[in-house]
């Protein structure tokens, strides 16, 4: 562990594998008694007033913003807001995840109870297809363990491929988990079960488990292979054979988590092992569906105060699709966005829904910052553009009156809520009319960034006109329920604003008229048409002189048809007028509740190390900001001798082919470095010794650069020629 290097520059800790960091003690504190006593004493003291400390410690990481002028109260408030808001979202996501697996859980427990009587002498096994996202398997098996142990008196053992490398280890793990005993100190590898018996068992002897279970009534012992693909196939066959042979004594049931398919698993197992299995297959809810649900609950949902902009949402969704990042990655990205917003945006204090002391807490800097927002500017410009007395007054007050500005800022929460509800309603109405494609997440993102056409192809009018009367009635009912009752899955409240109520009245009236019309038509035995429906146009085919002529005729519309057409026109007009969507960033002070910054998240969640390394090697001055290296254009291939050695070698490396002669590399390196030196000290006389020293120094740098290139995996040794190395990386 200690180093052989005599150099005093190295401390012992540098080459230690691991140590406890404690800068106050110069000695390595690992095996020393006094330090430990002091530590424990300190900790005992610390526990006394822990509640207070917890808060202190967590709040201390928030730094005051607004060039440090932010008051502590605001900083703490941001922190509190983050905690509160994220807690709500997090709890919701957890619920969604739990619910999403509930169907599978039920199926599996039903299978287990039924299999008990049906399996005969075979071993019941549930094959659960989890899909390729092994990150979410953990959650599933945790839930399985909970639900199965709840329904019956049983033991649940989870095996992972990394833990069970061979049969002995797997059995040890099974017995340990089942008997919930930690391993006895190594050396005494046997274990004793129960108080009464004196027999000692080897830790991988299933007899021990049998003995242990004999004392307690157990229906089942579940053994779950979480990542069945990761297990060695021979090992799996062995375990299955062994456990099934013990089944008369110990009621084993197997669970397999499968990422690919059952067929693949079956092919890997021995035929004899397969024959012992009485199995059933269960399909989990796929990631897409879960993602959609999480997205609805945590992003779209109307009561989530922090809204996300289209850019960032799109990049998150793209990452899910392109990188198969898994639902956990989505959740942690979401959390990171929350952290970014409250950590770095001083105006996020305004997000608080309550107003208590809200006014006092704000400082002059906040007001200054508010006046610099793009949305503020937009609002003022709009008001001035309107040029009515009221709007001009509004603009003037915004610019000059701090009180007025504050009251507007306080109201920004209401603005957000009304904008949000309006936006969601319009989205739902479009969905009801069939104007958006199924994944609601994508549609939501699109609706934030693009405005829908008001007429023509893709517009709401177009879709409404296409409907038959039955579909139109259905749509209207849905729209009315959206306005009247809200949408529980999105936590959308019933609409209460004046124009909403007016629209609702109109829609209800229209609906009753439509129903009347329909029942009339039904009794009269006619099908109702509008002038837009395709049936009203009759295609006429005439054959004249062996050529086919197509012509269209509008069938005559009945009176009822005309009524229906009028209704369709009215509905589409009203709805289109009502649901005009507005961009979120245009809402006044939207910056306090809208986050749409793509860059930090992308860099932090999806790093691009190759690009980073390439840049730092090719153009170190980008990072070092030194004047000496930038001089020549490195892109032109001329190198500065002042570059770090690794960088120079990297440039030489780029020029070389797949095999590099180190001798040539060294001479090129030395020529570059020494040439530069001579330029510098031209007048001075170089005596032989100095030159010799320079060469050795250059060699040291050369060594260092080469070692670093090797450590980074750019080169490896080659046996093809002496003193040659092979290039292994083409960045």
């Amino acid at each position, binding site marked *: 562990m200690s180093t052989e290097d005599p150099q005093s520059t190295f401390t012992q800790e540098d080459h230690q594998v691991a140590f406890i960091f404690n800068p106050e003690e110069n000695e390595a504190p690992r095996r020393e008694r006094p330090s430990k006593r002091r530590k424990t004493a300190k900790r005992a003291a610390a526990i006394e007033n822990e509640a207070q400390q917890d808060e202190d410690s967590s709040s201390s990481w928030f730094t005051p913003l607004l060039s440090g002028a932010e008051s502590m109260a605001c900083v703490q408030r941001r922190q509190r807001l983050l905690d509160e808001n994220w807690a709500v979202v997090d709890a919701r996501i957890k619920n969604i995840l739990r619910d999403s697996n509930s169907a599978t859980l039920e199926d599996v427990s039903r299978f287990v109870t039924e299999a008990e009587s049906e399996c005969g002498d075979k071993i019941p096994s549930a094959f659960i297809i989890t899909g390729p996202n092994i990150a979410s398997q953990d959650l599933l098996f945790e839930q399985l363990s909970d639900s199965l142990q709840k329904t019956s008196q049983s033991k649940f053992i989870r095996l992972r491929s990394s833990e069970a490398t061979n049969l002995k280890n797997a059995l040890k793990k099974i017995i340990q988990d089942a008997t919930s005993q930690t391993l006895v100190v190594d050396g005494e590898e046997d274990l004793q079960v129960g108080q009464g018996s004196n027999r000692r068992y080897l830790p991988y002897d299933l007899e021990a488990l049998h003995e242990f279970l004999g004392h307690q009534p157990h229906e089942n012992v579940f053994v779950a292979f979480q990542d069945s693909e990761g297990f060695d196939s021979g090992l799996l066959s062995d375990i299955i054979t062994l456990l099934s042979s013990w089944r008369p004594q110990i009621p084993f049931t197997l669970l397999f988590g499968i990422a690919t398919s059952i067929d693949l698993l079956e092919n890997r197992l021995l035929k004899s092992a397969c024959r012992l299995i009485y199995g059933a297959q269960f399909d989990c809810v796929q990631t897409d569906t879960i993602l959609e649900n999480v997205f609805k609950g945590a992003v779209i949902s109307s009561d989530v105060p922090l809204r996300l902009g289209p850019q960032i949402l799109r990049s998150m969704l793209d990452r899910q699709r392109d990188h198969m990042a898994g639902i956990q990655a989505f959740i942690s990205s979401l959390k990171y966005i929350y952290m970014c917003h409250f950590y770095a945006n001083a105006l996020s204090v305004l997000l608080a829904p309550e107003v208590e002391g809200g006014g006092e807490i704000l400082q002059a800097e906040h007001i200054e910052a508010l006046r610099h927002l793009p949305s503020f500017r937009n609002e003022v410009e709009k008001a001035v553009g309107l040029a009515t007395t009221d709007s001009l007054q509004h603009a003037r007050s915004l610019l000059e009156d701090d009180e007025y500005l504050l009251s507007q800022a306080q109201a920004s929460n209401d603005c957000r809520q009304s904008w949000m509800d309006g936006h969601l309603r319009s989205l739902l109405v479009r969905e009801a009319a069939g104007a958006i494609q199924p994944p609601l997440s994508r549609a939501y993102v699109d609706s934030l960034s693009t405005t829908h056409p008001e007429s023509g192809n893709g517009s709401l009018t177009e879709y409404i006109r296409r409907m038959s009367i039955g579909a139109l009635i259905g749509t209207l009912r849905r729209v009315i329920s959206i306005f009247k009752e809200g949408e529980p899955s999105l936590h959308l409240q019933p609409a209460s604003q004046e124009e909403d109520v007016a629209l609702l009245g109109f829609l209800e009236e229209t609906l009753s008229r439509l129903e009347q019309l329909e029942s009339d038509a039904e009794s009269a035995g006619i099908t109702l048409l509008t002038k837009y429906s395709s049936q009203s146009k009759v295609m006429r085919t005439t054959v004249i002189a062996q050529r086919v002529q197509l012509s269209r005729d509008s069938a005559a519309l009945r009176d009822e048809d005309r009524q229906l057409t009028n209704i369709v026109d009215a509905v589409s007009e009203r709805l289109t007028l009502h649901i005009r969507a507005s961009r979120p960033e245009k809402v006044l002070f939207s910056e306090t509740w809208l986050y749409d910054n793509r860059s930090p998240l992308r860099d932090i969640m999806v790093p691009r190390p190759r690009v980073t390394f390439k840049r730092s090697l090719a153009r170190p001055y980008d990072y*070092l900001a030194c004047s000496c290296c930038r001089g020549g254009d490195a892109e032109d291939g001329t190198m500065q001798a002042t570059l770090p050695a690794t960088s120079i070698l990297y440039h030489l490396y780029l020029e070389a082919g797949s095999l590099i002669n180190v001798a040539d590399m060294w001479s090129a390196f030395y020529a570059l470095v020494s040439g530069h030196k001579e330029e510098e000290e031209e007048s001075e006389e170089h005596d032989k010794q100095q030159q010799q020293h320079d060469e050795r120094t250059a060699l040291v740098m050369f060594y260092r650069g080469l070692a670093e290139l090797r450590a980074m995996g750019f080169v490896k040794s080659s046996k093809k020629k002496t003193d040659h190395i092979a290039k292994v990386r083409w960045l």
Partner: protein
Amino acid sequence: MDIEIQETATEPEPSATTPTPRRRGRPPKNKSNNSTPNAKLNVVPVFATPTKAVGFNPLTPGRAADRSARRKSARALIDRVVGDGGSDDDDQIGVDITRQIYESSDAEDEDDGEDELEERTDGEAAGLAEGDAATPSKTPARRKGRAKRARSPTPPRDLPPHELYFLHNKPGRPKTSDNTLASLNLLSHDEYFSILHDHQDRHAENIEYLESLHAESFPQWAFELSQGFSICLFGLGSKRPLLHKFATYIHSSNKTSKTAGKIVVVNGYAHTTNLREILSVVASAIDPNQRVPTAQPAIMIQSIASLLSASKLTLTIIVNSIDATPLRKPGSQAILAQLAAHPQINLICSADTPDFTLLWDIGVRSDFNFVFHDCTTFSPFKVELDVVDDVHELLGRQSQRVNGREGVAFVLKSLTENAKNLFRLLVGEVLIAMEDEGDEDVGLEYRMVYNKAVEEFICSSEMAFRTLLKEFHDHQMLTSRKDNLGTELLSLPFRKEDLEAILEDLTA
């Protein structure tokens, strides 16, 4: 040359027109027109006639013309460079135009590669089909022209990496010089460190400034850690000093806020790094009085987790070089991830290679819950790398230190007389073989060495011989391999000069 140019110029034709006697007569006529490279350019529009374009490539008639223009201009450029020494100024303008054409179609040409290929095979097929009708000289002439084009330009700049890979890995002997480092006196450890000690890096100040920039985000990192994320720092240069500073920062803030927190530093680059040791240090940091038994890491981690959950401690684990060789086994990353997933453990690590993300699959990655920060520091890897040994190993001279001349002498000192004799025999035989073959990399036939050893009464049975050899194997003084016929070959991993020195020592 002229014929050749003619060929490329008329290349699109075969697929477009039917071979008629008239056509056969045409090329010579053109040839007489285009006697100088400059004049050739003027012929280009001929191919823009609609009928031919449609027949050949209906979508992009213009491009086809461009391409042949480009080909011609390329050739003209080469002509100019290779052909004429006595140059002329009036040609200059023409050359400029040629160059322009060549360069303008350059960009287009890249994504056009496929089209071009098709076109060529088209042309070729047509050429074959009408082989009888066409002049016999046609095909060879074209081949020659194409070969010339492939060979002539210097390797193009700014190729994408994958293209560069194939360019560099073309079959055939690599073209490097035969220079070796024989004349250079390689560095020893002492020299390396003494020079390094006096050396002043000209960028020291910049590096320090860069580090201070990174240090400014310490509160942010601490915040991210406290929110349950792990942090991974990547980028060029050693991040050890930076992480050391961060440890100090966490330590001092732990003290001021009186939180129960401890910090464990793990050096992934240390050669002896293994999981058991890391875990036992972690366990002792949680509770020094309770010893967690050393066992399988998977089992240890369970007891650590239960120990930690029972206490109020926040543990910060700092891993230097998480992608270093000792930690690269998939199992160890999974264990570290399990550690990091514990809510009371914060993990921050540094990664030094550009490929570190390949270490983690989706499960491990979601356990780690990483955020990544670009922390390019440019600091030298003072501790992480054993520079001298690494370079020597890279150059295939790993025996320099550990098993060098002194090492061999040291090992032999502790062995029996017979073993010494055997090694002397081996060294002598290898040297003789080197003399004979003039090659550094020689192997001795096992059977031959055994017979000699028996002759010299070094050993009496093959068993004893094997035992002696095993001793050498254990000290890496001997390597054995099998050749193509399955004969076992023994060789010594030393250079000739070393062997001579060893032999001197042994006989002295």
